[in-house]
């Protein structure tokens, strides 16, 4: 991921922003899915950190 830092920054930020906006516009049941999408970058970062510790 770090080989293309600008691309990965855009993808990670896009996932968060897309997930948060998505959670606002879809029905309440589906909004949890979008919250998970928004949280994916943080989960990915935590997982990589723990694996490479």
């Amino acid at each position, binding site marked *: *991921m*770090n*080989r293309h*830092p*600008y691309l*990965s*920054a855009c993808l*990670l*930020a*896009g*996932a*968060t*922003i897309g997930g*948060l*906006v998505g*959670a*606002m*516009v*879809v*029905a*309440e049941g589906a*909004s*949890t899915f*979008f*919250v998970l999408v*928004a*949280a994916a*970058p*943080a989960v*990915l*970062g*935590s*997982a*990589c*950190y*723990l*694996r*490479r*510790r």
Partner: protein
Amino acid sequence: MVSRRRLFRICHWLHRWTGLVATPFFLVLCLTGSVLVFRDEIDALLGATPPAAPAVGEAKPLATLAAAAVADRPAMRPISIYLDPDTPDRAYVGVAPPGPAVLRDHAAVLINRTSAAPMPYSDPRGTFTGFIFDLHARWFLGLPGELFGGAIAVLVLVCLASGVVVYAPYVRKLLFGVVRRRRGTRLVQLDLHNLLGIVLLGWAMLVTITGICLASGTLLLSTWQATELRAMAGPDSRPVAAPVSIDVAAASAQAAEPERRLRFLIYPETDFSGPGHYGFLLYGGHRYDERLFKVVLVDAATGRVTADRPLPLYLKALVLSGPLHFGDYSGWPLKLFWVLCAAGTLFITGNGAVLWWMRHRARRTRAAEA
């Protein structure tokens, strides 16, 4: 054309100094914002508003609710009624002294919609969360405080954008998620700053941009009032001696927009209606547009709809910025996510200042030795 090296140096300087200047204020914003995510829960816990209950029986006419509020606050007139869909048992009736009124300065009376009896209610401005909100949004300074908060948010946005440019060369030769633990405290702090910064970038960008929108809210609303609302009311709008009942006017507005839900009703002679017009805000009936509303003006003399318009784009952005800034639209999972992101951002902000201090101290030590 700016060379890569020069761009990096400019962004490095911007990232360092915008971050350092914004740090103390941003820490306050993060802490107060984390409290405000749980505003409804805290208000309920402290008894600022009675717990929501389902509406039992038929709702009283709007004019009866307004009359009940005026009976509770003699020498006042009703200026607005807010019907919150989350609490269908009550109506918030805004009251003000007779004459032209500013909606923001009103006092509110909470009225039971089925019995028209007043309910216990604390002015939100006097509650704990109201205090925190005033600090977060206005720094206790009114409009200048709002604009100051917006300026801080602009600094944070510059810091974030320049941070991405600074981030790239540092991490290009590292695996994602690596923290170099054996090479000194400063590198550990730097790697944590980079890792947390990049995973929280989207959240921080969204909250900062919506914060800038909200900070300019008063100016945007003033612009709308001075241009669109004035045009909707027309140049001939004059106070009416015997206006039609608000129920008649509300029925006209609802008939003009049958798909939408009437939520906010504004009496004539306020800054959100015309001198001779009722104003009604009708919200969308679907999840995707439930926060967006249309403004319908009804002639207070005839009870006829005279204007019906959607919000301009800049006010739509303002309205949607509220939930996207406070993260209160999708229950507990989102609130938890918000608080964790705010905590992470607090860490990055503090650790950025520590990184600068460590480097600054090392340079001073080297200079002293030389």
